[in-house]
């Protein structure tokens, strides 16, 4: 069902500080989690594999490209990996900026190791869930994409809870025609009933990330 389900989750770590990379790698690996660390944002961008679920531990202050810059670069590239910022000091402005840009967490060094590992797990779960949701939505979207223009119009009206009669009137077509369209839609959308159909469409339209929103609109 999920294309990336087979891949084990991977924790990406980007920090210019060797000691941080080394210690965190050891720590995270000790929990059985796979870790890939990079000393710069560029190195990460060059080695990132989008298929694999995971999360990104990202240092805020780095030479050349900073954590924030990498974050926006990922957004630009449509990469929706959960980011946990790790920073040398709690700077409100830094954390606010990170959260606004969709970071899942902002931890100050030195951090509570349990909290960090917990957050990593959460982030990975989130990524997996997101990826599943993304796949689901993608499947529904595919079905929607297969509808004819008229069928899409009828579907829109159904979602807005219009009856067949009302729909026929709005579209200025016969009731019979609306019935034919509805049957076709139910079939193409693989919906058992109208309630399921409406749920599918609304689920698909619910934004889960800015990147996906763009695709739906």
């Amino acid at each position: 069902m999920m294309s990336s389900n087979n891949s084990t989750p991977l924790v990406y770590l980007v920090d210019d500080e060797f000691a941080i990379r080394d210690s965190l790698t050891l720590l995270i690996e000790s929990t059985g989690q796979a870790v890939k660390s990079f000393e710069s944002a560029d190195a990460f961008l060059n080695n990132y594999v989008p298929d694999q679920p995971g999360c990104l531990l990202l240092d805020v202050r780095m030479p050349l490209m900073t954590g924030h810059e990498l974050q926006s670069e990922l957004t630009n590239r449509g990469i929706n990996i959960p980011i946990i910022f790790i920073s040398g000091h709690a700077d409100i402005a830094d954390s606010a900026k990170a959260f606004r840009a969709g970071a899942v967490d902002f931890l100050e060094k030195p951090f509570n190791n349990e909290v960090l590992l917990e957050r990593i797990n959460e982030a990975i779960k989130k990524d997996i869930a997101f990826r599943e949701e993304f796949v689901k939505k993608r499947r529904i979207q595919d079905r929607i994409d297969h509808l004819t223009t008229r069928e899409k119009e009828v579907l829109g009206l159904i979602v807005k809870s219009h009856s067949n009669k009302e729909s026929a009137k709005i579209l200025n077509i016969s009731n019979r025609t609306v019935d034919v369209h509805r049957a076709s839609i139910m079939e193409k959308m693989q919906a058992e009933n109208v309630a399921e159909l409406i749920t599918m469409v609304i689920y698909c339209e619910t934004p889960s990330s800015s990147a996906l929103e763009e695709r739906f609109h």
Partner: protein
Amino acid sequence: MSKSPNGHLNTERLNDKAAALLDKHRETIREQAEIMLQHSGADIARMSTHDIQKLLFEFQVHQIELKMQNEELNRAHQELTASRDTYAQLYDSSPVGYLTLNEAGIIQKANIAAAALLGYPKEDLTGKRLGKFIHPSDQDNYYLFIHRLLAQKTGQDLNANIKDTGAWPTHPECKYFQLCTNASQAGDKGNVQTYIECYAKVVYNDKSALQICLSMNNITERKQAQETIAYLNEKLEEKVRRQTSELIVSNLSLMKKVEELRHSKHQLLEREAKLNSIFNASVEGIITIDMSNIIVSANAAVETIFGYKPEELIDRRITDLIPSSPQEMDGCSVPHAVIKPAGQIQEVEGIHKNGFTVPLDLSIAEFSVDNVHYFTHIVRDVSLRKHQERQDKEHLDELAHVTRLGLMGEMASGIAHEVNQPLSAISSYTQVSLNLINTETPDLVKLTEILYKTQQQALRAGRIIHRMREFLKSHAKHRSTADINNLIHEAVSLCIADLKQNGIKLIFELESSLPPIYVDHVQIEQVLINLIRNSIDALKTLPAKQQRHLAIHSRLTPNNSIQVRVKDNGPGLDIDQQQKILTPFYTTKANGMGMGLSISRSLIEAHDGSLHFNSQSGKGTTFYFILPITEKS
């Protein structure tokens, strides 16, 4: 018995004449005797025999007497003849010319010398006028001479006359006559004129005729000598006059010189008085020593500086006062070899009478009198200045400390970040270690490795804290030798977080093996941090996309100083900012105090260095400082 001499040269003729004269004389005497007999009135005829006999006897006596007289006369005659011959010989051979003139001035007789003088044979002269031989220019004198001679003849003693004429100044001109020489006769004498000197007297010959006896001396040579002498005299007088005038001139100039000397003596005295007053009123000690370092003079000021009265110092050694006096330092007997040129001031320590040291400025000047060298030491008590300098330095140190506190406040978050890095790593490493220990078979090798890493991180954190504490120390450390590149690394280590946060690429261009400098580490680090932070602040204002570079160079300059440059590619400073950037309280930053650069400059200058910058608006700014390589003093 007056007998005029005969002027005949021929003796034979003279003899005949003499014999004739004698005969004549005898006859004359006979006649005279007979006349006398008749006149006596005696008449032989009337005389008695007795009387006749008596008379005869008398006659016989007379006869005998006469015979005797005759013999005597003969003898006298012979003597006279001999004397006359002698005279004639003398007359003719005399070097003096003799002339006998008659009343009219016509030559009657002349001797050989006179003839030679007049240039004619003696025989030719007789009958000629003497005046004819006198030079036309002397004619008047000559006639005046003759006239006077004749006029004075009566009642005038000849001797007096001679005396009179001999009296030089009476008529000197009369006595000299220039002869009109006969050119043909003068012959080889050529145009040489002859001068004669004449003495004349008037005599009367046996015929009672007036005669002028004139003797002539050739005085040409004397005259010439006189003329020469007169000429020489004139020359001499001329010379004397000239020399006199020269003497007057030189006398004048001498007088002027004397005046000048008097003036300069006055000036010298004045100067000496001035110098004396300066010497005694000077606040600087003036001590003169000889070549063996013995004090020969000292002024009053030495008492305030060294506590000794000037007279106490005489004959003491300069090294008692100034142990490091160059003479002693060198220890050689030619002190001037080590003396710096006058005016160069060296800082030395003096020793006060009370044993305390006094900081002094010393300058030494050399002078020599009669090849003996002296050295004047001028010393100034610089305790106050030293105190002031110390105070200034303390103030600067305090100010530097205060600004370091401020700087550290600004850097606190960055440093905290730097400390958090190792702490964070430690935290993770220890967690991993704990996890390892909790396993059934702990991997001890791995555990050891991790614990080692943990330790390293702990030490690293400690180092950062230590650096920070060093940087914040209030008491300035004493200066010590340092490698500038180490100081650069230390300074950068406190700024590393800020550099990272702002995405600034740091470039080191440090020359290796630089000579050590002798500095206050913290203060030089402070300057470096200040410059680095200024660059960071400037680079922050660049757009995010633009690359930010900060380069730090160190190098040895050709004149043996260390130069450190902190260069950024920030926005640079405009002209207005460049003019004000080093002045206190000027800042381009919103929260800046405007003290950083001015203190940095003061700190570098306190190290005998200098701080500069150059900046180009839009291109970047470079600040650089130069520190001298100074050995530990």
